C-alpha cells in the first residue's frame, strides 16, 4: 500500500532558544497525539523530523506513524547559524532514497508533505537559493510545502521562495503554536484522504495565523 511521507524541518539555531523551541516541542507532541487518533493519518502517514542549525541532522528517520512511535528529544540549542539550505538539501537527499516514485510499472507513494519551522533568514544563502530552484523545478514533487515563520521578527520572504503555503504566527507563545499544529494536522488529514486539488481546501487557519499565499 502507498505511504504518505511527511518531513518536518525544525530550526534549532540559537535564536529559537527559550520559549520558541519549547513551543515547537509542545506543538510536535500535540500534533503527534492528534495524528495517532486520526484514521486517515494512521492508514498511510510516515514521519521524518530533521533539525537544522550549523548543520542539518536527522532527528527521526522516516518512521511509520503508530502509537508506539516515540518522538526523540530535541537537544539543547547553541548559538549558531541557520542553515536552511542545507536542511532542504538533506530533505531532498532523503526524498530520493525514501519516497517511492510513481512509474509506468507501479504506483508510487503519495506525494510527500513538508513543514518547515523557522524564525529567521537562512545563513547559507547560496545553497538556499539553489535549493529553492531545485524545489521549484519539480524534481522533488511535494503535494504541499508549508513554511511557518515563527516569532515576532520572522520574515516570510525566504519561505515564500519555495513553500506552497506560508503562515506566520504573529506572537510566539505556546497557544499559537498549538493552534498552528492543529491546523497542520488537519491539513495532513485531508491529504491522506487523497483529496485531489480541485476540491482541496485547507481549513482556514485559526485566529493569529495568517495565510500569506
Amino acid at each position: 500500500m502507498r505511504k504518505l511521507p511527511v518531513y518536518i524541518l525544525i530550526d534549532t539555531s540559537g535564536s529559537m532558544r527559550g520559549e520558541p523551541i519549547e513551543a515547537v516541542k509542545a506543538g510536535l507532541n500535540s500534533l503527534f497525539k492528534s495524528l495517532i487518533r486520526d484514521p486517515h493519518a494512521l492508514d498511510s502517514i510516515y514521519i521524518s523530523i530533521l533539525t537544522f542549525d550549523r548543520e542539518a541532522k536527522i532527528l527521526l528517520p522516516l518512521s511509520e506513524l503508530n502509537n508506539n512511535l516515540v518522538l526523540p528529544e530535541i537537544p539543547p540549542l547553541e548559538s549558531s547559524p541557520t542553515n536552511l539550505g542545507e536542511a532542504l538539501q538533506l530533505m531532498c537527499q532523503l526524498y530520493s532514497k525514501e519516497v517511492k516514485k510513481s512509474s509506468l510499472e507501479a504506483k508510487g507513494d503519495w506525494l510527500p508533505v513538508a513543514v518547515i519551522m523557522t524564525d529567521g533568514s537562512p545563513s547559507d544563502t547560496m545553497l538556499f537559493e539553489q535549493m529553492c530552484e531545485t524545489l521549484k523545478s519539480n524534481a522533488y514533487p511535494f503535494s504541499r510545502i508549508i513554511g511557518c515563520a515563527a516569532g515576532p521578527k520572522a520574515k516570510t520572504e525566504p519561505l515564500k521562495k519555495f513553500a506552497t503555503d506560508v503562515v506566520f504566527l504573529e506572537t510566539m507563545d505556546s497557544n499559537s503554536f498549538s493552534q498552528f499544529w492543529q491546523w497542520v494536522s488537519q491539513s495532513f488529514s485531508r491529504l491522506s484522504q487523497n483529496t485531489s486539488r480541485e476540491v482541496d481546501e485547507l481549513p482556514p487557519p485559526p485566529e493569529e495565523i495568517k495565510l500569506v499565499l
Partner: protein
Amino acid sequence: MSLVTIQAKDGASVEFIKKDPKQGGVKDVYFSPDRSYVVAFYRKELDFGSKERLERLVGNYRVGIFSKQGAEYWKNLFRWPERIVEYEKKTGIVVPVYQPNFFFPENTTLAGAEKEGKWFTSAKNFNRFVPEGEKGNLLSYLRICINLSRAVRRLHAAGLAHSDLSYKNCLVDPKTGDACIIDIDGLVVPNLFAPDVLGTPDFMAPEVVTTMKLDPKDPNRKYPCRETDQHALAILIYQYLFHRHPLRGSKVYSDDTEIQESLEMGEKALFIEHPTDTSNRYKIQKNDKDFLPWIDTGKLPYKIMGPYLKELFEQAFIKGLHTPSERPSADDWEAGLIKTADLVQPCLNKDCVKKWYVFDNSTKPVCPYCGTKFKGQLPVFDLYSSHDGKNFRADNHRLMIYNNQYLYLWHVFRNVFPNEKLPDSQKKPVAYFSFHKNQWIMINQTLDSLVDLTNNKPIPKGSAVPLTNGLKLQLSQEQFGRVVNVSLVKA
C-alpha cells in the same frame, strides 16, 4: 467560558459555548452547555440559494421525514438540522449530537474519538488500531450496511440526494451495527438545489471525476445526484464488508500521481475483482502485512458474501460503474443485504475475527476468514410463495438454520418486510430452532396454522417438528403465507 444565548429563526432559545470550535470543511462547530446539540456556523456567507435550501431542510423536508411512519426510527439514522440561527452576520444550524456509542469508549486507546468510517474500512486501521472489543463481527457490518442503505433509500424516496456520502459523513458502530448519516445540510435536490461539494475522492462517481475539469457551466459536466449517491453507497458497503476499496488496484495509467488518481477514479475506473479484465487486481507487496488478509482478493473474493450481494456488486462495479442508470438502488442493497443476513452461520472457531460467514452453498462449508471447516448437519430453508394460493414458486430466498436461531414473520409472509414500517407487534419471533438430542427441530411459538405438508400433520403452538431432508412445511395457511423446503447438508 463564554456562553452565548440567541434566538433561532423559529423562536426557540439556543445556547452555545463560544470556545474552541471544531472545524469542519465549511463550518465551525460549537457545543451547547448540556452537549445535547451543536451549533454549526458557516464560515462563508451563504448565498440566497443555500439559505433557501436550509429553510427547506429544517422545514418541509424534515417534517416530511420525521412526521410520517417510522419517525422515531429515522431519528437514529440521521443527524438532521433542526433550526437555523443567525449570529454576528453568520448563518448557523442547530443539530442534535451523536449517540454516545459513536465515540470510542473511555477505557480504550482511542477514547473519545469519533467512530468514522475510515477506522473500519482501512485494513491496517482495522487490524492494528481499532481496539479489540470494537471490531464487531460480520453480522454487525451487515447491519451497518442495512442501516446506511435504508437511510439513503429514505432520502432518495423524498426526492433528495446526499451528495457527499463518505467516511466522515457516515458514523458507524460495529459493536452494535448502528449507523448514522451526518452533514445533511449539503443535500441536493435535482433541478432545485445544486450541490456545493463534488464529494470525497474515494467516493466520487467516475463521471464526476472525469468531468470535473470542465467549465462549471458546461452541460457535459456531471454533479452529485442520486446516481452518484448510489455509487458512493456501493463503495461504502464494499469497504465495510471487505476492508478494502473496490477500485484501488495495481493498474498504472500514468507516472504522474494526479493524472493517475483522476484516471483510476474516473474515466478508466475498473473493479479490482473484474472477472475477465484482471489488469487492476491488487498485487500484494512486501510491506503489506498490516493489510492482510483483507486486501487479498484471491483469499477473500467478493463472492464470499453470497449470491445476492455478488450480483449487486457486479451491477455496481461492472455494469453500472460507467453507466449510472444501471447502478443498484439503495432499496436493492437493503433487500439484498437483508436476504444475505439469512445466509449467515456462526463460525465454529470462537476466536474467528468475523465470528460469522455467509454459507457458500457447498456441501463442505468452510469459514473464509479463518479456514475452520463446518462439522455436523446444516439445515437450509428454501422459501416459496404463491400468488394464487395453489402454485408455489421459489422466492430466491434461503434461510440458514443455526442453534437458537429464530424464524420471523417476514419469513412466514411474502408481504411482510423487516424495515422501519414494521410495527413492534410484528417484530417478535414466531418459531425457533434447536439442535436437540442429536436432531434439528423447529419449535412453533406463535404460528396459528403451521403444517407439516410431507406428513400432512398440523404443528400446534408449543410443539416441535423434526427437520429432515426433503421436508415441506407450510408456515401459514393465510394469504401470502409461505411454504418452505428443508434440506439437510451433512459436513
